Protein backbone atom coordinates (compact mmCIF):
# COMPACT_ATOMS: atom_id res chain seq x y z
CA UNK A 1 0.00 0.00 0.00
CA UNK A 2 2.88 2.38 0.77
CA UNK A 3 4.13 2.49 -2.82
CA UNK A 4 0.60 3.06 -4.08
CA UNK A 5 0.09 5.73 -1.46
CA UNK A 6 3.16 7.64 -2.57
CA UNK A 7 2.04 7.48 -6.19
CA UNK A 8 -1.52 8.53 -5.41
CA UNK A 9 -0.32 11.40 -3.26
CA UNK A 10 2.01 12.67 -6.01
CA UNK A 11 -0.72 12.41 -8.66
CA UNK A 12 -3.61 13.75 -6.59
CA UNK A 13 -1.95 16.06 -4.10
CA UNK A 14 -3.88 19.07 -5.42
CA UNK A 15 -7.18 17.17 -5.47
CA UNK A 16 -6.72 15.80 -1.96
CA UNK A 17 -6.01 19.29 -0.66
CA UNK A 18 -8.98 20.76 -2.56
CA UNK A 19 -11.32 18.11 -1.17
CA UNK A 20 -10.11 18.81 2.36
CA UNK A 21 -10.39 22.56 1.79
CA UNK A 22 -13.93 22.22 0.45
CA UNK A 23 -14.84 20.68 3.82
CA UNK A 24 -12.76 22.65 6.31
CA UNK A 25 -12.83 25.99 4.42
CA UNK A 26 -9.46 26.71 5.99
CA UNK A 27 -6.10 26.06 4.21
CA UNK A 28 -4.22 25.22 7.41
CA UNK A 29 -6.85 22.77 8.57
CA UNK A 30 -7.03 21.26 5.08
CA UNK A 31 -3.30 20.63 5.10
CA UNK A 32 -3.57 19.15 8.58
CA UNK A 33 -6.27 16.79 7.32
CA UNK A 34 -4.22 15.66 4.31
CA UNK A 35 -1.17 15.16 6.49
CA UNK A 36 -3.10 13.22 9.14
CA UNK A 37 -4.66 10.96 6.54
CA UNK A 38 -1.32 10.28 4.83
CA UNK A 39 0.28 9.44 8.19
CA UNK A 40 -2.54 7.07 9.12
CA UNK A 41 -2.56 5.32 5.77
CA UNK A 42 1.22 4.92 5.84
CA UNK A 43 1.20 3.00 9.09
CA UNK A 44 -2.04 1.15 8.42
CA UNK A 45 -1.81 -2.58 7.87
CA UNK A 46 -5.18 -2.66 6.09
CA UNK A 47 -5.03 -3.58 2.40
CA UNK A 48 -7.97 -1.93 0.62
CA UNK A 49 -9.86 -4.23 -1.70
CA UNK A 50 -11.55 -1.64 -3.91
CA UNK A 51 -10.35 1.42 -5.82
CA UNK A 52 -7.24 2.67 -4.01
CA UNK A 53 -7.58 6.24 -5.27
CA UNK A 54 -11.12 6.40 -3.86
CA UNK A 55 -9.84 4.83 -0.64
CA UNK A 56 -7.22 7.56 -0.21
CA UNK A 57 -9.76 10.29 -1.01
CA UNK A 58 -12.17 8.75 1.50
CA UNK A 59 -9.44 8.80 4.15
CA UNK A 60 -8.70 12.47 3.49
CA UNK A 61 -12.42 13.26 3.56
CA UNK A 62 -12.81 11.53 6.94
CA UNK A 63 -9.76 13.33 8.29
CA UNK A 64 -11.09 16.67 7.06
CA UNK A 65 -14.47 16.06 8.70
CA UNK A 66 -12.69 15.11 11.91
CA UNK A 67 -10.36 18.13 11.79
CA UNK A 68 -13.34 20.36 11.04
CA UNK A 69 -15.11 19.12 14.14
CA UNK A 70 -12.22 20.05 16.40
CA UNK A 71 -11.27 23.26 14.65
CA UNK A 72 -9.92 25.78 17.08
CA UNK A 73 -10.63 29.47 17.52
CA UNK A 74 -7.15 30.20 16.21
CA UNK A 75 -8.36 29.28 12.74
CA UNK A 76 -11.57 31.26 12.94
CA UNK A 77 -10.22 34.09 10.81
CA UNK A 78 -9.40 31.71 7.97
CA UNK A 79 -12.73 29.89 7.91
CA UNK A 80 -14.75 30.47 4.76
CA UNK A 81 -11.73 30.31 2.46
CA UNK A 82 -12.60 29.54 -1.15
CA UNK A 83 -11.36 26.35 -2.80
CA UNK A 84 -10.32 28.53 -5.74
CA UNK A 85 -7.16 30.52 -6.31
CA UNK A 86 -7.55 33.89 -4.62
CA UNK A 87 -5.50 35.76 -7.21
CA UNK A 88 -7.21 38.28 -9.40
CA UNK A 89 -8.58 37.69 -12.89
CA UNK A 90 -6.37 37.13 -15.89
CA UNK A 91 -5.63 40.60 -17.39
CA UNK A 92 -6.32 39.17 -20.84
CA UNK A 93 -9.92 38.17 -20.09
CA UNK A 94 -12.78 40.55 -20.63
CA UNK A 95 -14.65 42.26 -17.83
CA UNK A 96 -17.75 40.23 -18.61
CA UNK A 97 -15.82 36.97 -18.53
CA UNK A 98 -14.10 37.91 -15.29
CA UNK A 99 -17.45 38.77 -13.72
CA UNK A 100 -18.91 35.45 -14.86
CA UNK A 101 -16.02 33.53 -13.35
CA UNK A 102 -16.32 35.46 -10.13
CA UNK A 103 -20.02 34.58 -9.90
CA UNK A 104 -19.22 30.93 -10.58
CA UNK A 105 -16.59 30.89 -7.82
CA UNK A 106 -19.01 32.40 -5.33
CA UNK A 107 -21.76 29.99 -6.35
CA UNK A 108 -19.52 26.95 -5.76
CA UNK A 109 -18.31 28.33 -2.44
CA UNK A 110 -21.92 28.89 -1.40
CA UNK A 111 -22.95 25.29 -2.10
CA UNK A 112 -23.74 22.92 0.77
CA UNK A 113 -20.57 21.06 1.74
CA UNK A 114 -21.59 17.70 0.26
CA UNK A 115 -22.49 19.27 -3.09
CA UNK A 116 -19.29 21.33 -3.17
CA UNK A 117 -17.21 18.18 -2.56
CA UNK A 118 -18.88 16.36 -5.44
CA UNK A 119 -18.33 19.27 -7.83
CA UNK A 120 -14.66 19.57 -6.88
CA UNK A 121 -14.07 15.81 -7.15
CA UNK A 122 -15.87 15.50 -10.48
CA UNK A 123 -14.74 18.63 -12.32
CA UNK A 124 -11.41 19.55 -10.78
CA UNK A 125 -10.00 16.26 -9.57
CA UNK A 126 -11.51 14.23 -12.43
CA UNK A 127 -12.78 11.28 -10.42
CA UNK A 128 -15.50 9.10 -11.95
CA UNK A 129 -18.93 9.02 -10.32
CA UNK A 130 -18.14 5.49 -9.15
CA UNK A 131 -14.94 6.71 -7.43
CA UNK A 132 -16.85 9.58 -5.85
CA UNK A 133 -19.53 7.16 -4.68
CA UNK A 134 -16.78 4.96 -3.15
CA UNK A 135 -15.24 8.01 -1.50
CA UNK A 136 -18.56 8.95 0.07
CA UNK A 137 -19.60 5.38 0.75
CA UNK A 138 -22.91 6.09 -0.97
CA UNK A 139 -24.75 4.69 -4.01
CA UNK A 140 -23.65 5.97 -7.39
CA UNK A 141 -27.13 7.35 -8.19
CA UNK A 142 -27.17 9.40 -5.01
CA UNK A 143 -23.85 11.01 -5.90
CA UNK A 144 -24.87 11.65 -9.52
CA UNK A 145 -28.12 13.29 -8.40
CA UNK A 146 -26.26 15.44 -5.93
CA UNK A 147 -23.92 16.56 -8.69
CA UNK A 148 -26.81 17.57 -10.95
CA UNK A 149 -28.51 19.45 -8.11
CA UNK A 150 -25.26 21.28 -7.43
CA UNK A 151 -24.88 22.32 -11.07
CA UNK A 152 -28.48 23.55 -11.19
CA UNK A 153 -27.92 25.54 -8.04
CA UNK A 154 -24.77 27.12 -9.47
CA UNK A 155 -26.53 27.93 -12.74
CA UNK A 156 -29.50 29.51 -10.92
CA UNK A 157 -27.16 31.53 -8.73
CA UNK A 158 -25.24 32.89 -11.72
CA UNK A 159 -28.39 33.72 -13.71
CA UNK A 160 -29.93 35.47 -10.75
CA UNK A 161 -27.01 37.86 -10.50
CA UNK A 162 -26.31 38.52 -14.18
Amino acid at each position, binding site marked *: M*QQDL*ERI*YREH*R*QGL*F*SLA*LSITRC*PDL*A*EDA*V*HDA*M*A*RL*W*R*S*SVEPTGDRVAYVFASVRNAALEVGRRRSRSHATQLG*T*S*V*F*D*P*HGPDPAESVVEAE*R*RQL*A*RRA*VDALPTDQRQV*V*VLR*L*HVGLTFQQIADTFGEPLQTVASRY*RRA*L*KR*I*KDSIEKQV
Partner: protein
Amino acid sequence: MNDGNLEQLEDLLRELPLRRPSPELDRRVEATWQARSSRPNRWTVGAAVATLAATAAGLLLILTWDPAENRVGDRPAPVVAGVEKPPAPAPPEKSPPQPIRIEKVWTTQSTAGVVVHDGDVPMQRVHQQIVRHVRWIDEQNHVNIEWTIPSDQTVLVPLEYN
Protein backbone atom coordinates in the same frame (compact mmCIF):
# COMPACT_ATOMS: atom_id res chain seq x y z
CA MET B 1 -31.39 22.28 -17.48
CA ASN B 2 -30.46 20.75 -20.81
CA ASP B 3 -27.20 18.98 -21.60
CA GLY B 4 -25.82 21.91 -23.62
CA ASN B 5 -26.16 24.29 -20.70
CA LEU B 6 -24.73 21.66 -18.40
CA GLU B 7 -21.62 21.20 -20.52
CA GLN B 8 -21.04 24.95 -20.81
CA LEU B 9 -21.32 25.32 -17.06
CA GLU B 10 -18.99 22.38 -16.49
CA ASP B 11 -16.44 23.94 -18.86
CA LEU B 12 -16.69 27.25 -17.02
CA LEU B 13 -16.18 25.59 -13.64
CA ARG B 14 -13.28 23.47 -14.87
CA GLU B 15 -11.40 26.60 -15.91
CA LEU B 16 -11.50 28.08 -12.41
CA PRO B 17 -8.02 27.64 -10.95
CA LEU B 18 -7.87 25.90 -7.59
CA ARG B 19 -6.10 27.24 -4.55
CA ARG B 20 -2.79 25.42 -4.21
CA PRO B 21 -1.47 23.73 -1.09
CA SER B 22 1.71 25.15 0.37
CA PRO B 23 5.09 23.44 -0.25
CA GLU B 24 5.10 22.87 3.51
CA LEU B 25 2.49 20.13 3.05
CA ASP B 26 4.88 18.01 0.96
CA ARG B 27 7.64 18.52 3.50
CA ARG B 28 5.39 17.47 6.39
CA VAL B 29 4.04 14.39 4.62
CA GLU B 30 7.46 13.22 3.47
CA ALA B 31 8.99 13.80 6.90
CA THR B 32 6.22 11.77 8.51
CA TRP B 33 6.63 8.92 6.05
CA GLN B 34 10.38 8.91 6.54
CA ALA B 35 10.02 8.87 10.32
CA ARG B 36 7.44 6.08 10.17
CA SER B 37 9.62 4.01 7.85
CA SER B 38 12.63 4.19 10.16
CA ARG B 39 10.61 3.52 13.31
CA PRO B 40 9.47 0.01 14.16
CA ASN B 41 5.72 -0.31 14.28
CA ARG B 42 3.89 -2.22 16.98
CA TRP B 43 3.99 -5.44 15.00
CA THR B 44 7.76 -5.33 14.56
CA VAL B 45 8.18 -4.44 18.24
CA GLY B 46 5.97 -7.38 19.15
CA ALA B 47 7.92 -9.67 16.87
CA ALA B 48 11.19 -8.43 18.35
CA VAL B 49 9.97 -9.06 21.90
CA ALA B 50 8.75 -12.54 20.93
CA THR B 51 12.07 -13.33 19.26
CA LEU B 52 13.94 -12.09 22.31
CA ALA B 53 11.81 -14.22 24.62
CA ALA B 54 12.25 -17.29 22.41
CA THR B 55 16.00 -16.73 22.27
CA ALA B 56 16.20 -16.34 26.05
CA ALA B 57 14.16 -19.51 26.56
CA GLY B 58 16.35 -21.41 24.12
CA LEU B 59 19.49 -20.13 25.78
CA LEU B 60 18.19 -21.11 29.20
CA LEU B 61 17.41 -24.60 27.97
CA ILE B 62 20.83 -25.03 26.41
CA LEU B 63 22.68 -23.72 29.45
CA THR B 64 20.75 -25.83 31.92
CA TRP B 65 20.99 -29.02 29.91
CA ASP B 66 23.51 -31.40 31.35
CA PRO B 67 24.71 -33.99 28.84
CA ALA B 68 25.76 -36.30 31.68
CA GLU B 69 22.15 -37.06 32.55
CA ASN B 70 21.50 -38.51 29.09
CA ARG B 71 24.16 -41.14 29.28
CA VAL B 72 23.14 -44.77 29.09
CA GLY B 73 22.62 -46.10 32.56
CA ASP B 74 21.95 -42.73 34.12
CA ARG B 75 18.50 -41.94 35.37
CA PRO B 76 17.17 -38.90 33.49
CA ALA B 77 16.28 -36.05 35.79
CA PRO B 78 13.88 -33.21 34.96
CA VAL B 79 15.47 -29.90 34.07
CA VAL B 80 14.26 -27.21 36.45
CA ALA B 81 15.45 -23.65 36.03
CA GLY B 82 16.93 -22.21 39.18
CA VAL B 83 17.68 -25.58 40.81
CA GLU B 84 21.19 -26.70 40.38
CA LYS B 85 21.77 -30.39 40.06
CA PRO B 86 24.83 -32.07 41.41
CA PRO B 87 27.29 -33.01 38.70
CA ALA B 88 26.80 -36.48 37.40
CA PRO B 89 29.40 -38.99 38.45
CA ALA B 90 32.06 -39.51 35.89
CA PRO B 91 31.88 -42.81 34.05
CA PRO B 92 34.59 -45.29 34.62
CA GLU B 93 37.09 -44.27 32.03
CA LYS B 94 40.70 -44.71 31.64
CA SER B 95 41.37 -41.07 30.83
CA PRO B 96 41.13 -38.55 33.68
CA PRO B 97 37.86 -36.59 33.91
CA GLN B 98 37.89 -33.19 32.27
CA PRO B 99 36.69 -30.06 34.07
CA ILE B 100 33.08 -29.29 33.32
CA ARG B 101 31.36 -25.94 33.16
CA ILE B 102 27.73 -25.40 34.12
CA GLU B 103 26.09 -22.09 33.42
CA LYS B 104 22.56 -21.08 34.30
CA VAL B 105 20.73 -17.87 33.48
CA TRP B 106 17.53 -16.61 35.05
CA THR B 107 15.71 -13.74 33.38
CA THR B 108 12.67 -11.90 34.63
CA GLN B 109 11.02 -9.07 32.77
CA SER B 110 8.29 -6.67 33.80
CA THR B 111 6.75 -3.48 32.46
CA ALA B 112 7.31 -0.34 34.48
CA GLY B 113 4.96 2.29 33.12
CA VAL B 114 4.87 4.48 30.05
CA VAL B 115 6.96 7.62 29.64
CA VAL B 116 6.60 10.43 27.14
CA HIS B 117 9.40 12.91 26.48
CA ASP B 118 8.47 16.31 25.09
CA GLY B 119 5.38 15.09 23.31
CA ASP B 120 7.32 12.44 21.44
CA VAL B 121 6.15 8.86 20.91
CA PRO B 122 5.17 7.15 24.19
CA MET B 123 7.78 4.64 25.35
CA GLN B 124 7.09 1.53 27.40
CA ARG B 125 9.64 1.00 30.19
CA VAL B 126 10.64 -2.65 30.44
CA HIS B 127 12.60 -3.72 33.53
CA GLN B 128 14.86 -6.75 33.02
CA GLN B 129 16.66 -8.65 35.78
CA ILE B 130 19.22 -11.23 34.73
CA VAL B 131 21.13 -13.55 37.05
CA ARG B 132 23.96 -15.58 35.53
CA HIS B 133 25.47 -18.44 37.57
CA VAL B 134 28.61 -20.19 36.33
CA ARG B 135 30.26 -23.17 37.95
CA TRP B 136 33.46 -25.00 37.04
CA ILE B 137 34.06 -28.45 38.48
CA ASP B 138 37.40 -30.17 38.22
CA GLU B 139 37.01 -33.52 39.91
CA GLN B 140 40.48 -34.65 39.18
CA ASN B 141 42.01 -31.79 41.17
CA HIS B 142 39.05 -31.42 43.56
CA VAL B 143 38.49 -27.83 42.50
CA ASN B 144 35.08 -26.25 42.48
CA ILE B 145 34.73 -22.63 41.35
CA GLU B 146 31.45 -20.78 41.00
CA TRP B 147 30.31 -17.22 40.63
CA THR B 148 27.06 -15.36 40.26
CA ILE B 149 26.59 -12.19 38.19
CA PRO B 150 23.35 -10.29 38.74
CA SER B 151 22.44 -7.53 36.33
CA ASP B 152 19.56 -5.16 36.10
CA GLN B 153 18.52 -2.91 33.25
CA THR B 154 15.59 -0.87 32.01
CA VAL B 155 14.97 -0.50 28.28
CA LEU B 156 12.50 1.78 26.48
CA VAL B 157 10.36 0.30 23.73
CA PRO B 158 8.44 2.75 21.48
CA LEU B 159 4.69 2.24 21.43
CA GLU B 160 2.59 2.65 18.31
CA TYR B 161 -1.13 3.21 18.48
CA ASN B 162 -3.10 2.69 15.28
